[in-house]
């Protein structure tokens, strides 16, 4: 892919659009229990926001911005997704049985805490890291 002569329009637009995509991906992730969305779509949107940085700038800029080893992040996500069922076993429940409580946080009011969020967080991290590992591996293959 030959780059255009001057990417000034794309780059300054990226500075605006990146925040909107990332915020929307968080909204998809946290709205997954009651509305369409969840860990998978949220992870894909986050990966898309990071890929937009690669398209507008280059790999080096992404490495400076997000200095995360995505292979390690993949392991963290797998630990979340596999650890959650074992945690529910520790409490004497069935494997993979979710449980939830309601907690009164001073500012937010009555907040429901659900263990499915932890599992979804694992899915989210796995999707982000797998997508970016694929893209970066193909892209760096010069």
């Amino acid at each position: 892919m030959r780059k255009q002569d001057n990417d000034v329009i794309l780059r300054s637009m990226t500075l605006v659009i990146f925040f909107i995509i990332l915020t929307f991906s968080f909204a998809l992730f946290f709205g997954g229990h009651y509305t369409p969305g969840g860990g998978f779509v949220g992870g894909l949107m986050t990966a898309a926001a990071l890929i937009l940085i690669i398209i507008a700038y280059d790999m080096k800029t992404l490495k400076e911005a997000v200095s995360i080893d995505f292979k390690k992040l993949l392991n963290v996500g797998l630990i979340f997704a596999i650890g959650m069922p074992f945690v529910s076993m520790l409490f004497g429940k069935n494997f993979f049985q979710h449980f939830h409580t309601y907690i009164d946080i001073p500012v937010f009011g009555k907040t429901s805490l659900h263990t499915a969020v932890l599992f979804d967080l694992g899915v989210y991290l796995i999707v982000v890291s797998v997508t970016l590992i694929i893209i970066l591996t193909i892209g760096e293959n010069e």
Partner: protein
Amino acid sequence: MAIQILINVLLALLWMFINNSFQVSSFLFGYILGLFTVYIMRKFLPEEFYLKRVIKILKLVYVFAVELFKANLSVLKIVMKPQIDIEPAFFAYPTELEKDWQITLLSSLITLTPGTVVVAVSHDQRTLYVHAIDTKDVDESIHGIKRSFEKMIKEVSER
């Protein structure tokens, strides 16, 4: 401008904490009172009073909406003609804007007004290459439009 808006928002939050009422209406009332306070202290704060620039931005939005309407009508006229006799052409448009976001805004405004599309920006960011749908008589008027846009963007961004 940004620091003044930040001060204004902090004053509105302070107003909410003083009155112990955390509603949108309370925030808005505090914001209006904070606006008054910032106006009094405008000489001691950096840059000019920020409402001036907000009004200029609103003016730019209004001019852009009018131009969008007019330009769409002119393209509609071209499309509905029985014999289309247009002379498309590229022309280089010299710009005096310097910052990246100014050039991006100008390019977006030029592209969104039909009949003209920005295809490239030169390396030194001094020239925009524009493709126009009809250059017979529109060239001068296009330049007039661009001058107005560019002038307004300069007005918005001046300190």
